[in-house]
């Protein structure tokens, strides 16, 4: 079954009298446990597509079925709920709450999901252990390195056991070595059966995925399997 089933989607912004077709008749299907890279130069509609995939926005026209539900008909509250339940976001700038420790940051989606305090602490701790941060649970973001912060963000994305992990330039703010570590972590997550979508403009990052979707001027230009895939060494 397709987790993501996008059919003939348009996203049109009106800037003054000019209509900008950010997405122009895009169709895309992504199955469970795929590992997809979405690529494209700036202005290609990459961000718009990511916002739609992440249920942060709804299309102007077309159908977006997400795990069988029609996102286009959802209101803000439904979208918030589906984001909470089904989508794990990972951002370029990590976007952790600066004043909260790692544990609380990871707990946050569970708070909004209404999980009890004891259960969510346990799950958040487990998620931090899974990304190798068992000794950084009570550190605040400014006490962590960039790679560690992104690991906290990964833990936060995974803690709700979402249907997809949606990462936007996840290594953009990291040096190349740390970036490789994070990509190794993604590989591991994918290996555990998760569906991973990475939005990037770097070929090297995209080559970690198994399928690459290239956008240009609001249309899907190429959608093909990755042939020369980089399989990172698992990080000890």
């Amino acid at each position, binding site marked *: 079954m397709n987790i993501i089933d996008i059919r003939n989607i348009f996203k049109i912004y009106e800037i003054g009298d000019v209509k900008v077709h950010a997405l122009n008749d895009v169709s895309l299907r992504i199955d469970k446990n795929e590992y997809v890279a979405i690529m494209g130069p700036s202005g290609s509609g990459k961000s718009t597509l990511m916002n739609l995939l992440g249920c*942060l926005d709804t299309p102007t026209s077309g159908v977006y079925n997400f795990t069988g539900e029609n996102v286009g008909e959802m209101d803000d*509250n439904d979208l*918030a709920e589906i*984001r909470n339940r089904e989508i794990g*976001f990972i951002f370029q700038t990590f*976007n952790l709450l600066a*004043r909260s420790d790692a544990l609380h940051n990871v707990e946050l*989606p569970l708070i*909004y999901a209404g999980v009890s305090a004891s259960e969510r602490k346990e799950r958040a701790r487990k998620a931090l252990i899974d990304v190798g941060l068992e000794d950084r649970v009570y550190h605040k973001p400014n006490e962590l390195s960039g790679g560690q912060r992104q690991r906290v963000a990964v833990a936060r994305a995974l803690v709700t056991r979402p249907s997809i992990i949606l990462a936007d330039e996840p290594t953009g703010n990291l040096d190349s070595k740390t970036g490789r570590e994070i990509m190794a972590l993604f590989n591991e997550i994918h290996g555990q059966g998760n569906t991973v979508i990475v939005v990037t403009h770097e070929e090297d990052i995209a080559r970690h995925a198994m399928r690459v979707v290239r956008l240009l001027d609001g249309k899907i230009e190429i959608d093909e399997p990755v042939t020369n895939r980089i399989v990172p060494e698992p990080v000890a």
Partner: protein
Amino acid sequence: MDIGETFRMAFSSLRANKLRAILTILGVAVGIFSITLIMTIITALQSSIESGVSALSKNTFQIQKYPAINMGGPGSRAKYRNRPDITLEDYERLDELLTSAKYIGAEEWQFGEQVQYEGDETNPDVSVAGITAEAQNTNDWIVEEGRPINEGDVDRANPVCVLGADVKDNLFPPHINPIGLTVKVSGRPLQVIGYYEKQGDMFGQSRDNFVAIPIGQYHRMFGVHRRSVNITVQSFGDEDYDEVIDEARGHMRTIRKVEPWDEDDFEIFSNESMLEEMNEITGGVEIGAMVVGFIALLAAGVGIMNIMLVSVTERTREIGVRKAIGAKKRNILTQFLSEAVALCLLGGAIGIALGVGLGNFAGSLLNAQAAAPFGWIVGGLLICVAVGVFFGAYPAYKAANLDPIEALRYE
């Protein structure tokens, strides 16, 4: 998310901006402080008045030229001053006419006098009361030793006096019995015929620092002119009290030839009417305090709104993240509202603590009993919540309605 969680988060985000939070809180604290301070003082005074009762003895009222508490503006004093004095003759007529009363006494007071005995003297703060015999009954002055001033003393204006407990204690050592000795009151030698039991303090003032003398003797010492007699009347019981007041008023109008269409040219007051007047004054002060407090709270509320708007702008990205990971509008709304309410409650709590503390300190200077205006404490906290919700609503609404995409992109 339960309410405890919400407030824990609210307080932790306030801690992140301590100075800003404190400055914002200050406004609320001042508003609530001014209300609780005044209310605490008033509550303390009222509880003292009501429990300490009273200026007058039980079932007693007083007829005077001037009201007990003058509430009028400038010029009202002139209205009372131009009334004819109440004379001893007025009193004697009333004494004859008002047969339903148990006791009717007349008294006049001279303040700041001195009593001497041989080489010793009191401070010049002794009150001298010129009285008729029954004034001792209406005032509940009970002779501890010796005898009271009697009708004969009053009729003949005898040069005798009965000492208040403080005067006796101040002037004579415990082993000397003053009865039969001659003291000088305001320079005039008078024979001590007795002394009264101690009555205690009221509003921090002793009620025993006085000397009672026959009213005729008083007139010889201090003159008759431009003096008005106070008449005190005691009824037999509670049941006939109001009736006796009405009768006394009627007789006084007759005696003083007040035309039926004119208002009384004298004042009748009782403990109840004094309490009422006191309450009128405190009611005015209460309204004043409320107005001041509300203006302060209004200003504080605008401050809170301002700071919350700044906070929403600063934390746009945080709001974006929260929304991305599943916060609903309601969650964000609650978060910012509860921060505003937490600010207000914190300020309110500080204001209340200071207000009750300082109010009771001020009350203690007036010898009032310690009190806490519970209604106003609860009310004050509720007002804080209301201010927080009211002024926090717009910033919270703004935060809740941010577009998550825009908010995430915000630098």
